[in-house]
């Protein structure tokens, strides 16, 4: 006789949910707690190094969206001088192909991720805006040297036990929790 339909399955299921009542919640309370993102994060917008860029436009060619606008003129040392380097991050899909394609490491993905704007126009980034600054740091995507210098990503998989048994108040809030590797 199979013990279906007698409510055994329901009882088992209820036991599972009851057990979860005493487990640490997995919620990360975002604006206060922030996780460390991957070192290879393809974060918002690009970082462009004007000194390394030769204006070869390989990035523009590799962009699936045709999203990088680059205009150059020949300078006095028989080099290209970049007049215009414009990226519409509203149309960018952050595939990272331009960064991979750049032969001179003059382009990197950004590491930040809070870049919402109020106007579409503000999403179009010019040459000046794309340069390295305090808020615009490069990520290690396709740039091993930068990657090595960034902090390790915090992983959810290590959060259950090693941080382990986190002493939480019943409601799970009072204690400030650290999280990460």
């Amino acid at each position, binding site marked *: 006789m199979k013990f279906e339909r007698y409510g055994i399955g329901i009882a088992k299921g209820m036991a599972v949910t009851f057990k*979860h009542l005493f487990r640490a919640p997995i919620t990360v309370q975002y604006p206060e707690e922030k996780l460390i993102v991957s070192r290879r994060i393809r974060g918002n917008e690009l970082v462009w190094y004007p000194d390394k860029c030769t204006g070869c436009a390989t990035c523009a060619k590799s962009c699936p969206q045709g999203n990088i606008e680059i205009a150059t003129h020949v300078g006095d040392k028989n080099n290209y001088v970049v007049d215009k380097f414009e990226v519409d991050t509203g149309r960018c899909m952050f595939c990272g192909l331009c960064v991979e394609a750049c032969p001179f490491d003059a382009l990197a993905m950004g590491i930040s991720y809070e870049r919402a704007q109020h106007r579409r126009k503000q999403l179009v980034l010019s040459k000046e805006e794309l340069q390295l600054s305090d808020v615009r740091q490069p990520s290690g995507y396709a740039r091993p040297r930068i990657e090595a210098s960034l902090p390790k990503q915090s992983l959810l998989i290590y959060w259950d036990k090693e941080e382990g048994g986190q002493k939480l108040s019943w409601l799970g*809030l009072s204690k400030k929790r650290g999280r990460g590797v």
Partner: protein
Amino acid sequence: MTLLEQFQLWLGSIWPGWAAYIVPAIVGIVVVLGFVLTMVIVFIWYERRLLGRFQVRLGPNRLGPEGIFQPIATAVKILLKEDIVPTKSDKVIHWLAPVIVFVPVLMIFAVVPFGERAILTDLNVGVVYVVAISSISAVGIYMAGWASNNKYGLISALRAVAQMVSYELPVVLAILGVVLMAGSLSMTQIVASQKIPFLLLQPLGFVIFFLGTVAEMNRSPFDLLEADSEIVAGYHIEYSGMKFAMFYLGEYGHALAYSCIIATLFLSGWQGPLLPPIIWLVIKVMAVFFVIVWMRSTLPRLRVDQLMAFAWKGLLPMAIINLFIVAAEVLWLSEITPWLMVAVNFVFAGVLVLLWSKLFTLGGGRVEV
């Protein structure tokens, strides 16, 4: 004599008769309403936090300590929303429906005993009153679903009627068992007669009543009226603003009312050692609601035909048999120790549940079209 009547008597000696009747009544209603609305707010918070913890997340925790003011913020948000009335709706009924859903819920609390003499009116037919009043909100739900001129709403309304009518019967029959044991229809008498909680004396009756009420207050796994994954929100799909707030409050008020009634009928109400009666009642109500939330967080929803089958094939016959058993016990066993009755009833409950579970087939249910 309840506290209210005593108050009225005392006031009657100094004030004219009509004032002495009305003023205490209003005071009583305000006190009870205050309690109920506070509890409803607490319930909303309690359910959200509890559901959060069942689902390994936190639940609202931003507003106030542990998020206790979140329901208030929700209320403010809902109240500030635009009141949308569909163009082709039946305006009057659309307007009236939330009221009809909400008011009976509040009326139930007239007969809930909060303490030994703390009850608004000690009706001698209190139980009958509860049954009668609580089913009125089905009408409101049907009106809401019908008037909003929405197909999801209509499906929900039709489900509502079927569900309410079906589950009313086992619920009433389960209550009858309690009434037989207590020997009275009055809520205070029922509480007073529970030296041993009726939960132990009538386990089967409790299960039937509990499931029936869960179905009547449309909570998972019987939440077919709202069934957000099928008919989106059912009857209140076209409601917003204050009217939606009425439904929302009505839903939690219903949950509170039924939790109170379950606590009163089966968990010996306000009775308990040491702590004041009102605290005991709140504890028991919270415990009942905990189980309801727990079920909600675990169980998938039944289908409409399975829901009906469960009521008519499962709960109703069991409730009838339970009633006969209880009647026989009250006739012949009441002289002997009640613990024998407890044992016998648990055995009967187990046997009946096992027997009836044979009736149900799992799955299937295709209709040839």
